[in-house]
């Protein structure tokens, strides 16, 4: 049975927000493995760097890897870590149906 994310486990979301990179707890790593799985039905969310070291925007890849990558919205993020966390929030919502307020 594939692992499903428990929307009540906000402790895992808080762990990620505190330290998005490096060693994670086993349970958080399972959450991330689901979020980053090779096949993503809704199209993979990516960070589009608009200005080097300064600005990023959310993009979503098409199922066809050769297709253009569309911007998700007009928001501009000022750090890569900031957009990493936003991708986590959006995936949490997509996968659990709950808005993550963390």
């Amino acid at each position, binding site marked *: 049975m594939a692992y499903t994310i428990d929307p009540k486990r906000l402790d895992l979301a808080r762990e990620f927000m505190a330290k998005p990179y490096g060693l994670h707890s086993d349970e958080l790593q399972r959450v991330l493995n689901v979020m*980053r799985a090779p096949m993503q039905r809704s199209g993979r969310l990516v960070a589009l760097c608009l200005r080097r070291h300064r600005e990023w925007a959310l993009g979503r890849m098409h199922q066809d890897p050769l297709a253009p990558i569309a911007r998700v919205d007009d928001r501009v993020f000022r750090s890569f870590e900031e957009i*990493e966390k936003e991708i986590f929030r959006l995936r949490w919502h997509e996968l659990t149906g709950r808005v993550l307020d963390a």
Partner: protein
Amino acid sequence: MLEILGYSDKITTRPGDTLEIKVSCEAGAKTFNAELVRIICADDFPGGAGYKVETVAHESNRAYPGRRQVINVGSSIQVNDAQGTLAPPSFTLQAFIYPTTPAHGVQGILGRFCDKMGGYRLMIDAQGALTLEIVNDGEKKTISSGIALKSRIWHFVAATFDAETGEVNLYQETGSNKIVHTEKISLTPAIPSKPFLIADGKYNGRIDSPHIFPRALTRREMDTCSVAEALAAWDFSIGISTADVTDASGNNHHGQAINLPTRGICGRNWTGEFMSWQEKPQHYGAIHFHDDDLYDACWETDFTLTLPDNLPSGIYAVRLSCAPSIPEHADEAEAFVTFFVSPSLRKATAPVAFLASTATYLAYANSHHGWRDPLAEICYNMALQLGPTEQFLQSRPDLGLSTYDVHSDGSPSYYSSRLRPVVNLRPKHRVWNFGADTHILNWLHMTGQTVDIITDDDLHEKGTALLKPYRTIITGTHPEYHTHEMLRAIKAYVDDGGRLMYVGGNGFYWHTAYHSTLPGVIEVRRAENGSRTQGALPGEYHMSFNGRMGGLWCNLGFAPQKLVGIGYGSTGFDSASYYRRQPGSFDLRAAFIFEGIGADEKIGDFGSVMGGAAGYELDMIDHELGTPEETLVLASSEGHSNAYVLTPERLLCAYPGIDGISHSDVRADMVFFSTIKRGAVFSTGSITWAGSLAHNKFDNNVARITGNVLKRFLDPKPF
């Protein structure tokens, strides 16, 4: 978008050489500026080692008229036919084809055709069906089978045209499924003054045994006619290692492969009995064409640049710039044509040489795998990022592929060429390979150590003679791709008393081939196993350039452990760690390495690349694979994350517990050993090692250890 692109005809140069610089202003700039620069440090990241690029005064530093140059991507075979003999009034065109994208629109298979003048061709139509197209003076007749060809299945296809009766017969067969379509037309084709083409640059798939006969054959005759009866009968199993295509009919309608379609691949006769095209060429009588194949962009030269005779050896670039369309995106109106200046032959100008990993840079040239590989994000354990360069590559398939990519039809890309704009071999890009390697040059520059630059390309060609003048050779951070000639040369250098500093990780990993006659292109076939983004297909493990088996050097009898004591063992990309001293570091033979380093000191728990000296790809000792018995393990890394895992070739089967938390083999081993003739090897086994050199203004234990080793290695006193 990137607004200016460029490349040169050379990448390894010497003082006095003349480079042809080719430029395209992609957004329509009317002029561009060029400037010769020396690259000391390519890393412009905030908190990085510090971007250092110096302008070199040169008469070529000025403005030039701008223009846009196009790239004709896609492979074909051109058969020149000045006499017009490949244009019989009646004809039969036949071939075996294995289309891989029959649903992707019009693709030419075989014929003599151009949009303006017309002609005739066997093709796939917009519906994916086999079609004969005949055009004359604006009038067009298409005769289609009406049935779509099947993807990745061998078909026999043929078209006959009888000029007297106007009868056309189409044959589209797969095994017992035989489709015959007959029509009569009242149009004869024009004969354009263009070459006869096999594939048209848009066709994706394989073609085997294409023939043209000077009359309309019956179906039975197609099976029984000899090649001597053909006007041309191209046999792709001849000359597989070349771009030459042989007509076996005796009529000398030989052709040339354009943009390196893939050869040495399984044809319609392949049964699995033979695994190499050299063993049974008849089983390898196909060529795989792709719409994104590219060897030579064939741009015109915008200006030439002659290197001054007194130019010091180093890494240089022509920095190109034009007025940006959007002022705040000025970075995108700047390009670098990077090249390497070695000293004049047999005239070393320094006791140490840095061996630039030009084969590795080429293997990664214009790679797309960092976002297209479905495993990329889960391997990196972080979000995928596409900068302006990557977004541009995504939008521009005409810039070609790397050896990490798959073609647009999903088949593996085995070749990579530098005769095109290579947009990721430049400063102000990722700190990976080239960018990371400049951390080493930056450190040498800071210490005042003179260094000559030599390259993989030259090493392949000149062998040990290139290394001999130097007391020490320093590698890059990730010298991953080598030919047998290169490995043999390094081994002979070390065995003969040379000193080698391998300050990287995952080195000497993939068997690579250079083409014997075409400059600037390599081949990599990722056979059997290894950390891969694509794999060579069954029966296709032998490289077309030289017939040798592709794959990992550890599977081919030359494991990196034999050369540098360690070899690739594990990988992760989310963080980096540090080393702890091991008992071997307290051996008297290693005392010089650890001068000024405390016994319990963590080594490299800092750095601008992921925060540690042990990261990305890690190497370890393995005596069974060849680590010399006398090797001292000086230090090993620890504390790697759960995103670090063992490499696939170390696993006979998959199992849990292969990550940085659970498995003790997830580590980098730093080693030292001396050789019979008093040479020596020092290896760090980590890609991020060099990213720690500049920490604390170069005052740190990574820089100290590296400096201690270099100082002793430059001392002629034997080990």
